[in-house]
């Protein structure tokens, strides 16, 4: 697992690459929650290169969403592979996390 971060205007884009499980999820937790604590309130998670996620990774998204909700922030996910999307649906996260097709759509969703 590795992460690439890029600031596009007000939006912090997080590209998550590879495999997020109980052994590899810590850097994602530290970076994503650290960014929110540091004042980033518009997060776009690019999942195009996310190949695997278990509940250990999904719990980080839930914690991030809770933190952002308290700050009137927003989190949007984009470019998700179908098998990953299924996990978000089974988790019941689809209602809490807007999932859009592309990074451009994500940026638009975060401006609204």
């Amino acid at each position, binding site marked *: 697992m590795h992460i690439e971060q890029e600031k596009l205007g007000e939006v912090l884009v997080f590209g998550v690459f590879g495999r997020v*499980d*109980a*052994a590899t999820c810590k850097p994602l937790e530290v970076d994503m929650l650290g960014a929110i604590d540091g004042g980033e309130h518009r997060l776009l998670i690019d999942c195009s290169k996310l190949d695997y996620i*278990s*509940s250990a990774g*999904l719990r980080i998204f839930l914690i991030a969403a809770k933190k952002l909700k308290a700050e009137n922030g927003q989190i949007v996910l984009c470019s998700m592979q179908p098998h990953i999307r299924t996990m978000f649906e*089974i988790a019941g996260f689809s209602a*809490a996390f807007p999932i859009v097709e592309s990074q451009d759509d994500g940026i638009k969703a975060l401006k609204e």
Partner: protein
Amino acid sequence: MSLSEMTISLTNQYEEIEHLSHLVEDFCEKNNVSENMIYPLNVVLDEVVTNIIHYAWNDKEKHSLQADLTIEDTMFTAVVEDDGQPFNPLEVEELDISTSVEERRIGGLGLHFVKTLMDCLEYRRSGEKNILILKKKLTG
């Protein structure tokens, strides 16, 4: 009638989970399990083993656990055994996934995946061991 079996031995290290994933994938591919079934089976075994590593032993010692995988015709069965403290995942309260983000509890998602993605779960405590049997009918 076809039968294929594999025994996977692991230690209580989270780093073992990726190794487990590769073994599950190899086993499924060898048995022509369809691509869209492999991911759920992988996640389920990950969740079960992650839970065991997290909760089964209170010391810092090295422990081992075992997963026996079987595909018999179109039935996938995993039998996961550990010698940690008694834990019956079937007694854990169901996660309410309809609650909002603010009210949603953080834990319990792993077992929710296991219960949702498998067709049948059985637990028994046998001597000093937890034995969890997971079954899934293979389709498509």
